[in-house]
C-alpha cells in the first residue's frame, strides 16, 4: 500500500493506543492541533483527552511526568516537538530516565518512549536545526533509535513500548513526507540491529535517519561510475550494532560515515574509532566522515546546504577512500 513516513508514525501511535490501555500520548499540541508535524492528527477525537494529552510548554515537567508515569506502571509515549526543545528536559532524561534502574540497584524501571523530530534542511536557523541524537547516544541507560524508512517508522514504536527501558525515537523532520510502499502486514521490527539497505563490494557507506535517502542516492550515482557501494543503515544508535559495522567494513575494506551531527566528538567519530580499534586490519584506506560543518546552522539556503551532508559530498568521499 502507498503511504508516507508521517502516516506510518500516526498508524503506529494509533495502534499502540488502541492495543494497550497503559499507553498514552502526551506533548505540546499533540491533541487539538494534531501534532506540529500532524503525526497525531485525529487521535484526540478518536481516543479522547485522557489518552491524547496536550501539555503546556513545560518540557522538563511533562517529560519528567512521563518518566514518573512509567515508574508507576504506565507506558507513556512522550512527544517533544523537536530535539531542540528537548534540552529543557535533558536533566529529566539524563539524570532520571537513564539512571533510575541503576541507582536503585535494579529495583525500578522506566519503560517510557520519548519521540522527537530532529535535523536541519528547512532554513529554520540555528536554534531549530540541531541533530542531537548523537548526544543522547552517549548516555548509558538509554536506547536510541532513528527510523530512516517507512517500515521502521511503522515498526519501531511497538518494539520500543515493549522494551523495559527508556527508548528515544528520533524522526528526521525531512522524512515525514517520504512516500513509498509499505506491505499490508507491516508491524513491529527489531530495535537491536543495523540493516544493509543496499549491498555492495567496494566501499561501505554507514549512515542512519535523515541521511539515509541522501546516502542511497549517492550509492546510485556511484553505481553509474562503476563503484559498488554498500549502504548500512545503523537504525539503532545506542547500543550500536558493532558487529554489523565491522562486517561491512570487512567486506568492502573501505569506510565512509555519513552523519548530520557535527563532526567533532560525534557519533561518526565513535564509529570510526570502533573500526580503528576492532577492524583496523580490514581497512585498505583511511576512513572518511561526511558530517555537518562546525557551525550553528545558518538561515540562508546556500549556507545551510553547504553546512550539511549532501549527495555530492558523499560521492566525493567515496571516491576519496577508493582512489585517495
Amino acid at each position: 500500500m502507498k503511504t508516507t513516513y508521517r502516516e506510518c508514525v500516526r498508524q503506529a501511535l494509533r495502534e499502540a493506543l488502541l492495543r494497550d490501555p497503559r499507553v498514552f500520548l502526551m506533548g505540546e499540541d499533540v491533541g487539538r492541533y494534531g501534532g506540529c508535524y500532524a503525526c497525531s492528527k485525529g487521535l484526540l477525537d478518536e481516543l479522547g483527552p485522557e489518552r491524547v494529552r496536550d501539555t503546556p510548554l513545560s518540557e522538563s515537567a511533562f517529560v519528567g511526568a512521563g518518566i514518573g508515569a512509567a515508574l508507576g506502571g504506565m507506558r507513556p509515549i512522550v512527544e517533544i516537538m523537536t530535539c531542540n526543545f528537548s534540552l529543557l528536559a535533558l536533566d529529566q532524561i539524563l539524570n532520571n530516565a537513564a539512571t533510575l534502574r541503576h541507582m536503585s540497584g535494579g529495583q525500578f524501571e522506566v519503560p517510557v518512549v520519548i519521540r522527537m523530530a530532529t535535523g536541519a534542511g528547512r532554513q529554520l536557523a540555528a536554534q531549530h536545526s540541531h541533530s542531537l541524537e548523537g548526544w543522547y547516544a552517549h548516555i548509558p541507560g538509554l536506547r536510541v533509535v532513528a527510523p530512516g524508512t517507512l517500515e521502521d517508522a511503522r515498526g519501531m514504536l511497538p518494539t520500543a513500548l515493549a522494551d523495559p527501558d527508556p527508548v528515544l525515537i528520533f524522526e528526521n523532520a525531512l522524512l515525514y513526507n517520504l512516500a513509498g510502499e509499505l506491505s499490508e502486514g507491516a508491524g513491529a521490527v527489531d530495535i537491536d540491529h543495523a540493516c544493509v539497505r543496499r549491498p555492495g563490494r567496494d566501499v561501505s557507506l554507514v549512515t542512519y535517519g535523515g541521511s539515509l535517502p541522501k546516502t542511497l542516492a549517492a550509492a546510485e550515482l556511484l553505481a553509474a561510475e562503476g563503484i559498488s557501494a554498500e549502504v548500512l543503515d545503523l537504525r539503532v544508535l545506542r547500543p550500536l550494532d558493532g558487529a554489523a559495522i565491522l562486517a561491512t567494513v570487512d567486506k568492502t575494506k573501505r569506510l565512509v560515515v555519513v552523519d548530520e551531527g557535527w563532526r567533532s566528538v560525534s557519533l561518526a567519530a565513535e564509529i570510526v574509532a570502533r573500526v580503528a580499534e576492532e577492524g583496523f586490519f580490514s581497512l585498505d584506506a583511511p576512513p572518511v566522515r561526511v558530517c555537518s560543518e562546525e557551525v550553528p546552522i545558518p538561515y540562508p539556503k546556500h549556507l545551510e546546504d553547504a553546512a550539511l551532508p549532501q549527495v555530492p559530498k558523499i560521492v566525493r568521499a567515496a571516491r576519496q577512500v577508493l582512489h585517495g
Partner: protein
Amino acid sequence: MSELTRERGLRLLREMLRIRRFEERCAELYQAEKIRGFLHLYIGEEAIAAGVMPELGPDDAVVATYREHGHALARGVAMNAVMAEMYGKWEGASRGRGGSMHIFDAATRFYGGNAIVGGGLPLAVGLALADALQQRPRVTACFFGDGAVAEGEFHESLNLAALWKLPVLFLCENNLYAMGTALERAQSQVDLVAKAASYALPAARVDGMDVVDVGDATRSAVAAIRRGEGPRFVELATYRFRAHSMFDAELYRTKAEVATWRARDPIALLRQRLDLGEAATAALDAEVVGEVDAAVAFAEAGSWEPVERLTTDVYARRPP
C-alpha cells in the same frame, strides 16, 4: 491617562503602520519564496511594541522572541536591515545568519530574536544584573508570550529578578494561544498577574490593543525600575490576527472569535481617536508604503555571503 497630543498620536500610528505594512509584505514575499523558514507575524499586536519602545532610552536593552519584527522596527533597527535579514542577505541585521526569528542589533541594544520559548527571560535577568553590578541606570525590557509562562525559565527568572531587585521590565504578550493551545488549557491559574505577583514584584494588566495605554503603563513601570525599585511585570492583553506561523490551519479557534478581536484592531482604534482627515491619512500611508518598497528593493539588491565564509562568527578567533 495622559492627554494624547496629535504629535504623539501620529508617531504611534506611524510606528504601528510601519510594522503592519512591513509584515503584510513579508507574507507576500513568503508566498513568493523570497522569505523562507518560519515566519511568525505580529499583525494585531503592533500596539505593544509601538507603545513600549518610545518609553525606553537608547541605553536600555530589549530581549524579544521569534515574533519580533515589530519589536525590532519600533526599537529603531533600520527597516532595510530587517528586510534584508528576512531574505538571508549579507546586508541583514544579523548578516543573514539568523533570518526572521533571529534579528539582532548591537547599536540599539536589541538582543534578539530568541526562538526557544522562554529562552530570553534568563538572558534579560543577566543583562539587568550586569547593569546593577555596574551601577548603570538602565532597564532591560523582556518580551515573551503567554506560552512562556508555563516554562520553568519564566518562574526561575521572575524569582531571581525580584530576589535581587534587578531592573527588568517583564512584558507578557498574552494573545491567548501558544500555537494551538489556549491559555486555559495550559494554565491552572489563568490570571497571569496573580501568578507574577506571587514572586513579590508589582504586576499589572493593560489593554494591549490601546497603544496609548501601553505607552502610559510602560512609562510608569520604567520610571519605577529606574528609581531602583526592582523588576515589574506587565501583562498585555492582545490577539494575533494571523496564523501562528505560515503552516497553521487554525483549527483551534473560531472565525467569530478572530472577528471579535479584529474589531478592536489597534490601528483602527487609534485612527478613530486621532481623526486625522483624509489627506493626512493618505500621506502617512504613502510614506509608510514607500519605506517598505525601499526596504524590499534594498533586500533584493543585497548580496549572498560567500560560501567560503561558512564557518565565520563561530569564535572570535577563527579556529585553524
